[in-house]
């Protein structure tokens, strides 16, 4: 690298400042989940596992966690199927309005959650006459989870030579066999990366969920939000937050590793 010593020191400094601003508060949350003091007195007078035990016994938190995981898995599954099909159709076929459809699929991730939430709430209740609940949360989450899958798959398809699929057909494979033996294996890591991101998106969503959950279902973020201001629940909320930090780091880390690995594999291919 041809970088002057001063510039390098400056960049290292900037990076350090940014990372500190992001991660010190997160570290505090983690630390406070072991803090003896209920009001998070600083510095902690002692460490305890009491709050982790209390959180483990909180039925509200456990139920909310279960709902969040189920919603996340279902929304991800729906996104994987629909997102892949949309990407294949848009990348491999030529038709009128192709670019417009592509834009429409990506748009939901850019729309403010409050707009999406209001619109879906309105459509679910008055247009379709649906009872708000588990099903409506899944549908709402799928609208934006599709985007990560769609983007990942489309990027992969763009770099994948179409002659691979032609070669497969040329060698005697019917379209489904070509998909099973060639297209899908080459998409697999893109699907995994897209799916993990989709799950992460769904798992921490709160705005759209608020509008589409109705009164009976609670996802984990909503449970946290509602218990945040109850003084005797605060330590438990803190523990849940700490657990979420650890949990959400895993899929992101995996997704990043996967896309790097495949970057190498696909671009090294002839």
């Amino acid at each position, binding site marked *: 690298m041809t970088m002057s010593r001063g510039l390098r020191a400056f960049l290292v400094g900037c990076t350090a400042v940014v990372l500190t601003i992001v991660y010190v508060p997160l570290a505090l949350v983690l630390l406070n989940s072991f803090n003896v003091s209920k009001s998070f007195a600083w510095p902690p007078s002692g460490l305890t596992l009491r709050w982790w035990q209390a959180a483990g016994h909180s039925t509200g938190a456990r139920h909310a966690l279960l709902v969040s995981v189920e919603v996340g898995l279902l929304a991800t599954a729906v996104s994987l199927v629909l997102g892949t099909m949309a990407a294949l159709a848009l990348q491999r076929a030529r038709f009128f309005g192709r670019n417009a459809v592509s834009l429409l699929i990506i748009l939901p991730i850019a729309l403010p959650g409050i707009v999406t939430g209001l619109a879906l709430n309105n459509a679910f209740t008055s247009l379709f006459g649906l009872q708000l609940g588990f099903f409506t949360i899944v549908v709402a989450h799928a609208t934006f989870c599709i985007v990560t899958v769609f983007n990942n798959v489309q990027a992969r398809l763009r770099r994948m030579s179409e*002659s691979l699929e*032609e070669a497969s057909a*040329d060698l005697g494979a019917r379209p489904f066999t070509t998909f099973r033996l060639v297209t899908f294996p080459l998409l697999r890591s893109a699907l995994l990366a897209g799916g993990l991101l989709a799950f992460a998106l769904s798992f921490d969503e709160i705005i759209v969920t608020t509008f589409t959950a109705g009164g009976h279902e609670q996802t984990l973020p909503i449970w946290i939000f509602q218990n945040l201001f109850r003084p005797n629940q605060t330590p438990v909320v803190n523990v849940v937050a700490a657990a979420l930090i650890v949990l959400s780091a895993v899929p992101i880390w995996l997704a990043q590793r996967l896309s790097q690995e495949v970057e190498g594999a696909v671009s090294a291919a002839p």
Partner: protein
Amino acid sequence: MRESGQTPSIRLVDLAKDFGSVRAVAGVDLEIADGEFFSMLGPSGSGKTTVLRMIAGFEPPTRGRIELAGADVTDDPPFARDVNTVFQDYALFPHMSVLENVEYGLRVKKVARAERRRRAVEALETVRLGEHVARRPSQLSGGQRQRVALARALVNRPKVLLLDEPLGALDLKLRREMQIELKQIQREVGITFVFVTHDQEEALTLSDRIAVFNDGRVQQVATPRELYEQPGSAFVAGFVGTSNLLDGPAARAVIGRDGVFSIRPEKIHLDPAADLGGLAGAHTVEGVVREVVYLGSANHYVVELDVPGGSAGASTTLTVLRQNLDTAAEDPAERRGDRVRLAWLPEHVIELGTAAPVSTPTTQESA
């Protein structure tokens, strides 16, 4: 070469293809015999690759018919046609090993594991690639990938092998080696090869017959020798070898009558004073050497003739190829600007019809 009465391996009848408003192929009729090494030669955009892709089944024709061994396959999908393709970018499956790539065609046709392994190894030996079978394509060199692609197609024992500029990505030395091997392999397996290339030298070297494409049409189908010695049009004369066209007033002055004529560079004698003995009845013309191109074993002299220009109005030049027999003492470049006399025998004049060519074709030098 072709026995009449025998069913051709491939027959194309009035085959045409439009991409939107662009006419890529404008009605092609061809018959390719069984076991023939047939090349489709032409500049990029001439429609040769589109014809190949229609034979493989990747592009549906806009019009016309495709027959393989007498059966109409025009509407058959690629997986139902008994042809295999070697792609320009090889299209090897990156997530499979060399062996898995070669086995692929047999695998989707449900050939038993032991049998397909045996045949894949055999095919890899045919292309002289017995080792590295466990490697991924990304771990191979360009030449090795080329061989894998060839083995992957040959293992299916197709009636016809289609090759889409398969040597284009290789460097010159490797390309020469692969040309020789390709010809040997074709003789060994004895199946029909249809070879697309824009390299006229490659086509002349490899082919039994060549179809020259231009503007979506076949200009001429002939053996390499016929194509070079008796090109049917100014385009063919220019695309295969150096054209050396004489037309308009220049033709009248040099040849003595109207028409479009071509003389191959190696047929022209430069400074014929010394060796004119055997050139009774030769055409002669004088001119000035404008350019000398040193080719090692020979030189190209570009001579501007002392005659009125051709139909395009510009001055007429002829390229002369002369072996470096005794030029060691003199620097050929010093002959630039010299007045010289050119001579050639009338039987070496190729008559390309009486009409002037519409446009000057791209000249391809065989270096």
